[in-house]
């Protein structure tokens, strides 16, 4: 079932009066990939089009292809055999997920009869060596993750568009999440950002998230999306279920942070950052996170439902060592893009007297870091002003949690 904003976006992209380029702007958890798969399936089955599905990352291409196969089977009753012939995954297929191997091919005959072909942007047109797709042409290109894609990358598949006036390109993504970084180490404008800035008419926003519960959804909406993002009531009411009682001998900040009713928590931690090469570490924050994780595990939350994230590689490594043997995933915020988990613990790492948040001051990064949770977000930050005053976005997040969430400190 599609919601209203998804239907509007989809109808817009499939109408005969559509713009040659259209953007679907999807904040976290709004079902971008699902809508993209719907567009592909309807363009193929209703308009008899041939569609190329592209994204920057292999995993995103895989996810869209998976959704397409499910839709073709469940909604249109296509058999597995027909789907495997009509839907193909090509490019650097060694990087495709194993469950997609039945769709993977580099054989030109098989690609020539496929109606839907998925590949990464950079594999969509190989200029020399073994060229796979150069004899193919498509009526429509679907480009996912366009909030991270530069124009020169987005141009690669364009030569595969049929030479006709009916061809169209749909770009999906969210430029308020991570953006491309230029060779000069500055943020670059992605294709979606450029479209949103210069041609707002061709943009449709998906405004309902199925990921963030309350009050996290309100925080993300207010801080990053101008108050335009909402969630269905059943999503807002989602809470963590724990087995047994939280230990009473645990410090208050652990008990409060783990309590299911507190879905949005900030723990201020004493303990300064340590600069490690070009990266940064914070052992004090790592210790608090370990305590939190062990208590979450003790009350029955399985390790696969918990993700620990931080912007800094050095801190990830400290956290991995600290949580060795628990099975809890520790990764950088960049690696968490597109992912979600029931409980997300974010370590901000930075803690200094100069209120220097480093690259945590990028609002796009903070948006990704604070919008991955289905049930609970615990931010473990400094107890001073580094996060509270470090940037406009971090200040607004801090203030929001102070007023609507749960503000704790380990210093008592």
């Amino acid at each position, binding site marked *: 079932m599609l919601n209203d904003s998804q239907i509007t976006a989809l109808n817009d992209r499939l109408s005969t009066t559509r*713009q*040659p*380029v259209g953007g679907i702007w999807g904040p976290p958890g709004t079902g971008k990939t699902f809508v993209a798969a719907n567009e592909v399936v309807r363009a193929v089955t209703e308009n008899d089009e041939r569609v190329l599905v592209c994204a920057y990352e292999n995993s995103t291409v895989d996810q869209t292809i998976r959704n397409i196969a499910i839709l073709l089977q469940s909604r249109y009753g296509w058999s597995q055999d027909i789907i495997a012939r009509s839907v193909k995954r090509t490019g650097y*297929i*060694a990087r495709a997920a194993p469950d997609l*191997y039945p769709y993977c091919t*580099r*054989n*030109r*005959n098989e690609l*020539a009869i496929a109606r839907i072909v998925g590949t990464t942007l*950079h594999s969509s*047109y*190989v*200029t*020399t*060596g*073994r060229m*796979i797709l150069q004899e193919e042409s498509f009526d429509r290109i679907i480009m996912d993750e366009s909030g991270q894609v*530069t*124009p*020169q*990358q*987005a*141009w*690669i598949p*364009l*030569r595969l*568009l049929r*030479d*006709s*006036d009916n*061809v169209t*390109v749909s*770009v999906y993504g969210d430029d308020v999440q991570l953006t491309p970084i*230029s*060779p*000069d*180490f500055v943020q670059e*404008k992605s*294709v979606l950002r*450029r*479209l949103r*800035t*210069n*041609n707002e008419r*061709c943009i449709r926003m998906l405004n309902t998230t199925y990921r963030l519960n309350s009050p996290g959804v309100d925080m993300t909406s207010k801080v990053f999306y101008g108050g335009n993002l909402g969630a269905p009531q059943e999503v807002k009411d989602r809470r963590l279920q724990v087995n047994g009682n939280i230990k009473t001998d645990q410090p208050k900040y652990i008990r409060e942070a783990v309590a299911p009713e507190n879905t949005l928590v900030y723990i201020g931690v004493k303990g300064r950052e340590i600069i*490690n*090469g*070009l*990266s940064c570490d914070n052992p004090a924050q790592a210790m608090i996170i370990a305590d939190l994780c062990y208590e979450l595990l003790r009350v029955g939350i399985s390790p696969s439902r918990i993700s620990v994230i931080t912007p800094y*590689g*050095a801190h990830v*490594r400290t956290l*991995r*060592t600290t949580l*060795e043997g628990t099975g809890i995933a520790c990764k*950088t915020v960049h*690696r968490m893009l597109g992912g979600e988990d029931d409980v997300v613990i974010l370590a901000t790492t930075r803690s200094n007297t100069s209120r220097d948040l480093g690259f945590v001051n990028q609002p796009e990064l903070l948006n990704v870091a604070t919008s991955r949770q289905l049930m609970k977000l615990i931010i473990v930050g400094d107890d001073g002003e580094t996060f509270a005053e470090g940037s406009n976005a971090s200040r607004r997040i801090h203030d929001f949690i102070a007023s609507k969430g749960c503000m704790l400190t380990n210093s008592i």
Partner: protein
Amino acid sequence: MDGKDILRLVAPRGKTFHLAESSDIRSATICGFKFKLPRVMGAVPEGDESYLPGTIAHKVLERAVPETLVHLWQNHASSEEILSTWRPHINCVFQEYRSEQNIGSDIEEYLFQAENRLHGIANALHEKINDEPVPTRILTEVTITNTFTRHEGRIDAIFEHASIDGIREETVEWKTYADKKMSEADKMQTIANGMLVNHRYGRSEDNFAGDSLTVITPTGIQHPQPTALAIEKIRNAREYVLNVLDGERVRAKLPYQTVCGSCSYRNACRFYMNDMTDPTRKKIFWSTRFRVLKERERTHVSKFLTDILPANVSAQLGIAEFGYILENIGQSELFGKYIMTLRKQDNGSSQLDSGESIRAIALEPNTPILACISCTGNIREINEYGRSVVIEVNGGQPSQLRHFPIILLKTDVDLTKRELGSIDFIHRNGGRRQEIALALLGEH
């Protein structure tokens, strides 16, 4: 100190981090535009797939030679024995090509031609291994970077021979084309690679005292002479390539027009020589190109850093990791790639993440770090809490890394050729696709 500050410290004075590849130098010795069209404008060679037999034969040699040559040499193998020893590799490569082509395509004809060329190479090799003693060491697919001259190349093979003065090397190139006579440009590329080999063995690049050049072709063996004139020509071409990449305005040296008829970039050349594109759009296309070139430059930065900074600083900055040894080499079940496992020896743990691109460099004694034997690949898994690293090999021969301490250098994959290719396409083709491209840029 942030990334920008470090780059400013190590950047070549007044220059960029761009590197001239030996193949760029080869093109530039023929015609300035022949280098610029593919490497700056992004033009793709025109014509059919007639280059395929050579490419296929080269691919077979890349796989077969490292595993078989010493054994074949020791046994003075005949050309038939050489071919039969290579047969499993030939079958494997041919199968890959067959699986990707249309049934109606010319692939069988291309494979037949590739087989013929391999036969020619086997004949030439038979003569060589019959006449000459077995080298003390055979290295294949050696990538050498000289950050001082900003020159990089991949040498097909280096044969090390024992001599009274120590080691004598032979720079070996396979040329798998059908032409009977070796072209002047190919000679230049071989000499350019020989200059890199001289750097590897600690000599000045123009000192060919211990190095001989050998080109093995289907029609026989040739030995290009590194004359002072040839070296001068290569240096001039290299300077031109680097000036163009550095963004300086330099006039391209063009050849006599008689050679233009056979050039695979003639349509692109005609277009750019008389480009009638709307000036605003032209400006957009060129500025996009220069952004891509900047991206390419960034892919070389870690090489300069590793070459210039002390080892412990590179490690602290997270650019390189030291203290590995090769533990195991296997092959990927599905895709036939080499998979190598490295073990950390210094009780430390890897700071790398799965998916990252790396260059594994064997630290050979008395050899510049970026001239040592190496393999490129991607990290597949980090096991045992960072003490074991599994790498999927994309280039190079992992068996050559055995018995050496290994460093892992973080690299960026250079995919800019594809981006430039798309800019060239959009620039040269108007219509709906150009409109869409400009719309994606937010300019329309």
